């Protein structure tokens, strides 16, 4: 399996900069997710790796070897598209066997490998059907089999689950992860769904507007986001962001002032990020009033108007413990502190009410 490096790789389409120069190193056998909103350049990155697009600048290396000039057909990369892109005029078996046919693998060996991979992704019953006769989930598996059958050194998945319904998505998440572990193939998954990235990948690359915001494990991104963008993109319900000012080592949020938690100079304008699940209702010095509540199965999400601003709060338990209009007190145990000007996180803990 291959290691992959992007070295200041850039992609422009005429005037449009789809990808600003990015650096990225993928380890051999790693499962990497590229996470970001629609249009941020995820697919572009994937197509650069596949050789479908040529980079405008920079170098792409597989196992340390520059492959910029190598065509897609010679890169030995398996790719699954969001729309699956099965060949409508071929049967499932012909679809899966297509890469082998192009490599002139002998018929009987090809047949054996197609059957083996079909068993692996559980479509061995469907080999004689045409793609139009398959359900979304089955098409997905066939596309996966086609990408895997040539034993690629790199597997690329472009939002492979976004066309499936919720139940199937859950099942396929596990399935893809299992396959990847079994085969040990270096894998890049593109997704806009944080749950997919968090549950499937070893590391996550968070992208926005053609730039890499942060690379790290799910825990890195969640607990130590590099920027406001990463902080607000991960976590559900999304993080509470409260704008404030800093003066004389204190942070002012709404009507309250907090002692800064670290040493070092603070910028004038800051943003404090408080995770909804870090806030506790009923204990703490901050006063507030419940505006509204939503049941979410085993937890409730409360919208609270507080002294520091509007806050979303997650409270476990199926039964509601508050009602709209009720006066409450609240506090939180940890928060994140960002510079409002450049939107980067400051290297010190955020303010906590005492």
């Amino acid at each position, binding site marked *: 399996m291959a290691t992959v490096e992007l070295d200041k790789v850039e992609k422009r389409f005429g005037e449009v900069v789809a990808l600003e120069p990015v650096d990225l190193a993928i380890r051999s056998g790693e499962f990497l997710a590229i996470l970001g909103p629609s249009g941020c350049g995820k697919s572009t990155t994937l197509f650069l790796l596949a050789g479908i697009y040529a980079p405008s600048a920079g170098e792409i290396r597989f196992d340390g070897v520059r492959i910029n000039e190598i065509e*897609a057909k010679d890169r030995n990369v*398996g790719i699954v598209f969001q729309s699956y892109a099965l060949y409508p005029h071929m049967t499932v078996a012909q679809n899966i066997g297509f890469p082998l046919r192009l*490599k002139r693998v002998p018929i009987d060996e090809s047949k054996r490998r197609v059957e083996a991979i079909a068993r692996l992704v559980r479509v061995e019953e469907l080999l004689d059907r045409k793609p139009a006769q398959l359900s979304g989930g089955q098409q997905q598996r066939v596309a996966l089999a086609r990408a895997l059958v040539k034993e690629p050194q790199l597997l690329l998945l472009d939002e492979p689950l976004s066309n499936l319904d919720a139940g199937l998505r859950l099942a396929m998440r596990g399935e893809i992860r299992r396959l990847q572990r079994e085969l040990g193939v270096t894998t890049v998954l593109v997704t806009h769904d944080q749950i997919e990235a968090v549950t499937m990948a070893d590391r996550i690359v968070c992208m926005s507007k053609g730039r890499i915001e942060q690379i790290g494990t799910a825990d890195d991104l969640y607990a130590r986001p590099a920027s406001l963008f990463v902080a607000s993109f991960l976590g559900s319900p999304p993080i509470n962001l409260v704008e404030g000012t800093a003066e004389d080592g204190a942070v002012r949020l709404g009507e309250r002032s907090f002692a800064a938690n670290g040493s070092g100079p603070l910028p004038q304008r800051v943003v404090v990020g408080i995770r909804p699940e870090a806030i506790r209702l009923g204990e703490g010095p901050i006063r507030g009033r419940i505006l509204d509540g939503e049941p979410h199965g085993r937890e409730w999400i409360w919208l609270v108007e507080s002294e520091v601003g509007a806050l979303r709060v997650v409270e476990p338990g199926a039964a509601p413990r508050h009602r709209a209009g009720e006066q409450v007190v609240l506090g939180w145990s940890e928060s994140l502190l960002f510079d409002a000007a450049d939107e980067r996180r400051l290297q010190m803990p955020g303010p906590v009410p005492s």
Partner: protein
Amino acid sequence: MPEAAAWADLAARTRRRRLLVDATLWTFLLLGSLPILVPYLWLLTVALSGRTGASTTVLWGTLAVLFPALLAWSLIRLALPEGRGQRRTEWALAAIALFGLAIVTGPHLHLDNWRFLWNPLIADSLKGASGVGTKFPSVWSAFFNSLLIASAQMVMVVTVATLAGYYLSRFAFGGREAYLQGLLVLHAFPAMTLVIPIFLLVYWAGLLDTRLSVILVIVALELPFAIFVMKGFFDAVPWEIEMSAMADGCSRRRAFLLVVLPQVKVGVLAVAVFAFLRGWEEYVFTRTLLIEKANWTMSLYLFWMREDVMGTDYAMVSAIGVFYVIPSIVLYTATQKYLTQMTIGGIKG
């Protein structure tokens, strides 16, 4: 909740309304198609029964059988529920109609008008002499020329339109928009306006009175629209299929041949059929550019048979006409199953 009786009443009313709508539709279709069908029917009856000169006896007889049969068929379709019973009644009706036709037309039928098929000197043996001189070519020579022009022209149109349509659909290049608009504008001009310039061009090129000249001229006139149609079909093929093929190990050309081309089969077929028919029926440019009798096509043969044989034998001209349209009908019947799947710029469902 309305009573059961009210429900039944409502259902009956819906049934009556649907019957009325269907009946109106059938009537319109029937009346609308008669003006098109009757001339062809006449052509056919004259070709099979006429004796020097057109007679309408057989036509009226045929209509007297076919029209009631058509009416009866409409009634069967409207009144009987779909299924075995309906189909059996239809077969019975068809048998009765055929029997009626046999009685009415049987005594008049003969194949005399088709002698041109086996008598190559037919024109000279007819009354009067041909004004273009003696020795009309055999109908088979004209048939072969038409076939050659239509096929060669079809192959060229299909090849060029497919490649150009793909290129226009997939590649960005300077002036692409202008080119596309140009294609449509070109198609908007009536070809007739070009007869004289084309004649001069062909003359200067030294191609006058060659079948190649007709082929090239029709190709040039047919291409713009054919390219446009093919571009539409290629536009409907997703990019990702092609990208996927390249990741699977295809070069761009193989991806085109193995993966993209099979998705536009219907388009290729449609362009091929229409190009063939266009070449088969071509008259204006064959008339302008072909002089030598050995180069005559079916359309010219038909024209000269009618025009130039004194005391024209309309029965035989009709037979030639029927002979002339048979290939078109065969081709269309063989391919219409695929052609009807076609919608503008793609394949249904």
